[in-house]
């Protein structure tokens, strides 16, 4: 079991390095570099640009640049963001907690609600409740996230004024006492999180329903009934524990999807997280920042699937043996 986890940690590290390589070389392949904009500027001489290029190392072969990038990144140095005028690690260090807060909230709520809904549906499969819930979740599942985000923003914030229109916090409250500050943060978090929750919950509920329906006709469920257990205990303890594995797998897949979805949602709600940083860095051709964002995103995804693997081991005793052999 331990050796299995170790090998997965190694796998995750390899994935992260590959992501960095892809991010780096794709950007290298794109025409121009961070100094290209200066070439058009009549007050900057070409010689100066060339000298600056040499000083920053942009004239070296791509492979050499990559190696020096990776060795620096391993030490926590992700380069310097030209557009924001500070080290990339500091920029990301400021944005990452906001994204983690948003994603963490979205995952926690959507999986809790999605699992509960899916189980309730499977236990009453075929009823009006089940059909209605399926229809609603299919509808939500098929919505594009930026559209849903905009609609929620326009209706709940613009028309009804129930929530702030964006940002992390109200400036006036930002430095006030703990409880007040917490409520204000929560108020700002609600809409972007709700957007992601609505989209993800639908998928989780559909998955959970299907997984449980697949388990319910199995022999051991009948054994549980024959033991004299209540239906509640049969479904929630015996069947559900066996229908949890697909959900754990889904969790591993949901992380990358949420990272991607967060790009739009953060943009719509002006949420100062990684998604907005990606958009900013592309707009400003800030290669160092973009590469750093992609690398951190890759690490997040790898860490997510690592977490899913670890959970799968906890949920299914049969996998433990498979790893021991």
């Amino acid at each position: 079991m331990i050796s299995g986890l170790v090998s997965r940690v190694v796998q995750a590290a390899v994935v992260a390095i590959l992501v960095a390589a892809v991010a780096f070389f794709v950007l290298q392949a794109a025409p121009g570099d961070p100094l290209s904009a200066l070439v058009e500027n009549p007050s900057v001489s070409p010689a100066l640009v060339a000298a600056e290029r040499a000083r920053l190392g942009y004239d070296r072969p791509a492979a050499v640049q990559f190696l020096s990038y990776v060795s620096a990144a391993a030490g926590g140095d992700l380069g310097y963001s030209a557009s924001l005028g500070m080290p990339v690690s500091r920029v990301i260090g400021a944005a990452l907690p906001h994204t983690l807060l948003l994603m963490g909230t979205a995952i926690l709520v959507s999986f809790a609600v999605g699992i509960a809904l899916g189980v309730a549906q499977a236990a009453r499969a075929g009823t009006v409740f089940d059909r209605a819930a399926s229809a609603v979740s299919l509808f939500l599942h098929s919505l594009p996230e930026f559209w849903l985000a905009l609609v929620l923003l326009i209706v709940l914030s613009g028309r009804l004024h129930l929530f702030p229109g964006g940002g992390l916090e109200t400036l006036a409250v930002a430095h006030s006492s703990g409880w007040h500050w917490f409520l204000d943060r929560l108020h700002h978090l609600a809409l972007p999180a709700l957007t992601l929750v609505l989209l993800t919950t639908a998928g989780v509920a559909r998955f959970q329903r299907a997984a449980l329906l697949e388990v319910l006709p199995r022999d051991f469920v009948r054994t549980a009934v024959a033991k004299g257990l209540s239906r509640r205990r049969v479904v929630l303890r015996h069947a559900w524990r066996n229908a949890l594995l697909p959900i754990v797998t889904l969790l591993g897949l949901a992380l990358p999807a949420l990272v991607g979805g967060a790009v739009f949602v953060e943009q719509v709600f002006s949420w100062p997280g990684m998604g907005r940083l990606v958009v900013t860095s592309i707009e400003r051709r800030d290669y160092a920042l973009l590469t750093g964002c992609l690398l951190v995103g890759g690490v997040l995804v790898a860490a997510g699937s690592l977490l899913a693997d670890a959970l799968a081991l906890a949920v299914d005793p049969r996998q433990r043996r498979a790893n021991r052999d």
Partner: protein
Amino acid sequence: MTPPPKGADAPGAEAPLLSVTDLRTYFHTNNGVARAVDGVSFTVAQGETVGLVGESGCGKSVTALSLMRLIQSPGRIEPGSSVRFEGTELLTLSEADMRRVRGNRMAMVFQEPMSALNPVFTVGDQIAEVARIHSRASRRDAWRQAVAMLELTGMPAPEQRAHEYPHQLSGGMRQRVLIAMALMMNPALIVADEPTTALDVTIQAQILELLADLQRRTGTSILMITHDLGVIAETARRVIVMYAGEVVEQSAVGPLFATPHHPYTEGLLAAMPRMGRRRDRLRVIPGTVPPPTDWPTGCRFRARCQYSWDRCANEHPPLYDLGDGRRSRCHLAVEPGRRAHPHEPLAAQAVPAR
């Protein structure tokens, strides 16, 4: 259709532990109504082992599940059926009261020891759960009882095994787990549905011996459901033979093996390999059980029978009383002379010779 006889051959005044009367379990499917169990009556006395035999599709497993009320939709136990157990009518009990019977007074040992156990819980946990539900035992007490039960079933190293998961155990060990689970509350009746079918022969013998031994010690009754007459010969005192959703013969084990009355029983015995009897090949009963949506009129075994005559096509045979507690659903009971003139069964004629 002739009404089936009420009750059965309990000689004393004492009411039998289990008394099934006119049990009908129908499956209402899109292809029509499958009458899987169609008017079955029998009894099981205190401490008795009764064998229920028949080939696949004859309704014996559905009968077992009906006793525990484990029939799932589209299956339904039809009104008018009766299952009396320990003086209580089970079919009209509330679901909550029925739960107090299941696993407590009446327990079931299932056929497939691999799939019948939950893969994500330890076997000790699964056995202990029975005591935690029915006697509200503490976690620690229930676990101790579970280990004691495993030991009783002859499980080697029961304390360690209790901590293992089903996939870590052999088929025989898993069957011991299921038996331990069934015995946990010292039930009055164990319904064993093909308990040895999935096991290899040496383990089969061990499990049967174990069941017989446990029965001697605890005095529980056993309804042993099997397609294997060998299992019946080793364990049961009385046999009920089922065919096409009906009881076709009832008898004590000795007379049934010596002089089977119903042609179906005769066929089952002839199809059974036996020591000391040299024969080049085993006889098989020609044809198959007809589909339960479409039982033939008259005698349901007619097409596969080597004695059938016109009466069998026209008249559904009642369960004739042959005396000495024997019953047979065959018109040979009233026209015994016909047995002297066997012929090729219709089902064998229909199939071209290979």
